[in-house]
């Protein structure tokens, strides 16, 4: 028997049987059929011959045509073991036996073939309603058999072309479909895995609530009760434009300040802060005027008090004219340095000494020299609160010089900025806010730098460490920075007001991670932002954000409110000091099963601006066991239990 034609193409399982009815032969056929895929995988072809003169035998012949094993019965496992140990030489060019076999005869479609183009077309037409997988298998098999047929005819070439074209068309279609699926998956994945970018229109623009909102040069904003009616107004400064007091009434914000001493259009006001300087239970308003960039200025500042419905400037009283501030400045903050409710005013001057005004013996005096505060710098921002001690400390962000971190030592200040690593000497300070970045029940410092790295300083081991990530610290033309829970989700956002550059918003999630919220509304890419402040001006439990604009181009004010989940809850804490005035500089801490979250009662003036004197908390999901601790400016504390949400709780210092 000539087996030469199989040499290097397949292995042979040669069965010699006396006749085809032999039981051993029948058994071998059955076993081979049951394992046919395994045999074909190993290129083992079954060839049977009858020879009545010979006894039954099975001979396994290798690719090289030589006998490898002679057996009396077929044991597939043994055969496979022998084959799997055999080497595969370079001469071997095996035939794919599966192309010539019918593994499942029951499902066979008859009449298919590849002898010519017509037969190929008939084949494709016959199987067109079967599954794609089946069609691909049949066409591939027919193509393989035609290409490898030992007696290939010219007509088969036509069939090969038909099958080839069909397969190419199928692959193109499949690629297109795969691409589409993959792109869809990429889009879905991208959306799912972007944990630090939340795409949503966070704010709603409610600027239309401001009645009479012309283009102007506005700067600092404060929030205080200017007419002593128990409601807060937005006080907006004007640079050669009137200072405004925007009051909320019947769904609109309207200016209620008409007296000249307040609106004061002729002076150029940029900084503003309010606190009860004269201890009458109502806040006075300090307007910081700057008619020059640096050094000596023409007009002094004003300290506005309301008496019998009339505003007066306390600096215009003869006895107070001794120590007028005639140096250009930027920001002003209220500091209860002795913790007794007697607020002083830290004036962050530019190109001249810092001033610190207090009423002493019924007279306004500059105490900066005796308090070690009379340093000359490029003063920009100043905040005051419980930063290091149980008294009101001060952090001043400066330009062209180191920042100051003024530790309150029994009412006298010591600059420890270098020791605490917040001096940031070669950056130019701007927007600054006190914020509980780690939700750990203490105030840390967020400090923005003009076209420099913005800082998120967290106190660790007696030094502040900057934990801002690369998105947060990215240099920008920063102005005011606000830390507040705009959307009542229980996590504070940080609003970065940039000038002539888009604003930014971050959410502080757990462990001090800053997650950027991509703004659409409130982005103001062409806005010349000069200041911003928050207050729940309409008393609905959601903060409003007022942005002032101007500087190199007159622009109108803008007003925003976060789009809040309708099921969200809030809690607002309003501490009043022993004189009944807002306890600026006090720290409120919300204690629950989920957090210990401190907020400052804003003393001013992160950069030119001051927020409402209320600690506003949104409530987290599944949050319970609410308690509130107020740390007053003298370091004493009050703890109260909160029994219901969605309310403003006023806590009075005893």
């Amino acid at each position, binding site marked *: 028997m000539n087996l030469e034609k199989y040499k290097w193409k397949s292995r042979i399982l040669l069965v010699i049987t006396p006749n085809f009815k032999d039981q051993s032969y029948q058994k071998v056929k059955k076993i081979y059929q049951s394992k046919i895929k395994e045999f074909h995988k190993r290129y083992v072809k079954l060839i049977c011959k009858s020879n009545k003169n010979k006894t039954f035998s099975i001979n396994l012949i290798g690719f090289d045509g030589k006998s490898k094993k002679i057996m009396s019965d077929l044991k597939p496992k043994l055969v496979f073991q022998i084959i799997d140990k055999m080497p595969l030489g370079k001469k071997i060019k095996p035939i794919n036996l599966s192309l010539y076999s019918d593994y499942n005869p029951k499902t066979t479609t008859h009449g298919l073939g590849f002898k010519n183009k017509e037969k190929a077309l008939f084949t494709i037409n016959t199987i067109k309603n079967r599954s794609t997988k089946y069609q691909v298998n049949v066409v591939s098999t027919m193509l393989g058999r035609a290409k490898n047929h030992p007696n290939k005819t010219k007509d088969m070439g036509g069939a090969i072309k038909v099958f080839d074209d069909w397969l190419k068309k199928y692959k193109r279609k499949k690629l297109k479909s795969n691409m589409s699926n993959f792109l869809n998956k990429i889009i879905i994945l991208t959306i799912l895995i972007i944990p630090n970018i939340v795409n949503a229109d966070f704010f709603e623009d409610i600027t239309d609530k401001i009645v009479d909102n012309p283009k102007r040069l506005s700067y600092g904003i404060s929030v205080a009760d200017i007419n002593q009616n128990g409601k807060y107004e937005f006080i907006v400064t004007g640079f050669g434009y009137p200072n405004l007091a925007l009051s909320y009434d019947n769904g609109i914000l309207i200016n209620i300040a008409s007296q000249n001493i307040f609106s004061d259009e002729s002076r150029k006001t940029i900084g503003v802060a309010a606190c009860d300087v004269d201890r009458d239970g109502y806040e006075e308003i300090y307007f910081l005027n700057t008619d020059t960039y640096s050094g000596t200025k023409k007009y002094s500042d004003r300290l506005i008090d309301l008496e019998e419905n009339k505003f007066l400037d306390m600096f215009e009283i003869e006895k107070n004219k001794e120590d007028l501030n005639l140096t250009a400045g930027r920001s002003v903050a209220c500091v209860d340095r002795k913790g007794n409710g007697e607020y002083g005013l830290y004036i962050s001057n530019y190109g001249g000494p810092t001033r610190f005004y207090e009423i002493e013996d019924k007279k306004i005096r500059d105490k900066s020299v005796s308090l070690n505060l009379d340093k000359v710098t490029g003063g920009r921002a100043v905040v005051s609160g419980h930063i290091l001690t149980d008294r009101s400390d001060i952090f001043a962000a400066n330009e062209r010089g180191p920042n100051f971190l003024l530790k309150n030592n029994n009412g006298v200040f010591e600059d420890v900025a270098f020791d605490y690593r917040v001096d*940031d000497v*070669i950056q130019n300070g701007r927007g600054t806010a006190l914020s509980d970045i780690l939700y750990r029940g203490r105030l840390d410092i967020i400090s923005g730098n003009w076209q420099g790295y913005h800082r998120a300083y967290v106190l660790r081991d007696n030094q502040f460490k*900057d934990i801002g*990530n690369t998105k947060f610290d990215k240099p920008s033309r920063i102005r005011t920075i606000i830390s507040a829970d705009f959307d009542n989700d229980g996590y504070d956002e940080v609003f970065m007001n940039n000038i002539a550059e888009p604003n930014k918003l971050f959410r502080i999630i757990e462990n001090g991670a800053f997650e950027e919220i991509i703004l659409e509304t409130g982005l103001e890419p062409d806005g010349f932002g000069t200041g911003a402040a928050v207050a729940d001006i309409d008393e609905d439990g959601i903060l409003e954000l007022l942005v002032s604009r101007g500087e190199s181009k007159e622009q109108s004010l803008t007003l925003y409110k976060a789009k809040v989940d309708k099921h969200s809850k809030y809690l607002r804490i309003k501490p009043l000091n022993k004189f009944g005035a807002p306890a600026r500089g006090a720290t409120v801490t919300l204690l629950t099963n989920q957090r210990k979250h401190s907020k400052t009662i804003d003393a001013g003036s992160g950069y030119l601006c001051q927020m409402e004197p209320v600690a506003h908390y949104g409530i987290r999901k599944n949050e319970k066991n609410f308690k509130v601790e107020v740390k007053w400016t003298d370091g004493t504390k009050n703890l109260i239990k909160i029994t219901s949400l969605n309310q403003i709780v006023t806590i009075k210092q005893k």
Partner: protein
Amino acid sequence: MKKILSKFILIFLVFFQFETFAQEKNYHKELITDWSRIFPDQNRNAAGPKFFKYIIDKEITYKDFTEFNKLYCAVSGSLIDPNSEPDFLYAKESKSGEKICGDYYKCCIPCSCDIMKYSEVEKMTHKFLDGLKDFYVFTIRNPCKKKDFPDRVNKDYFCDGEEINNNQVYNLNDRVVIGLLHEGRSCKKEEIDFVKSHQVTGRFCELRNNTPLENLKTGMGDIFIKLAR
């Protein structure tokens, strides 16, 4: 195609995760943060050696070391913008007199001229977190014996009496290391030709190097030259 796309997605995800969760090292920010530690008196005139000492004393990898050293000017002591491009130049090796070529990150072009003329390079070996590395550094002679030590430079940064202050600057063979020559190696002839014919290291430097000291207004003026000559 599917495999390529899968790989693309995998690479994208890996990079994205790094971007999202890993805090990329910001060498520039670190130098800004520590600036007042490096220059407690806020005088950084010609104080490249202070930067070098601050960086070499850190426990960092060689990559960190080279990245930090791209961010200050060895001549002026100024910080350099992170995206600055270096000048390709050469300086003479102290021992062999051979020209060593490499990249120099500068604050302004006159500094390239000054470093070529007034500094020499030396090979230095240092153990970083990732092992021992050899590299070339710019050095100047011990300036502490100078009678005309420039008064706008803080002498305490460099000197302990007439000796180099080893606590403040890096002393290599009684020379003060002022900065790193990046990618330093022996110059090929065509590299020397390139430096000599370049509009900065060639023509401009020739002009600057032939200008009387009292007429030097650009760069660090005469401060570094007085320190290094």
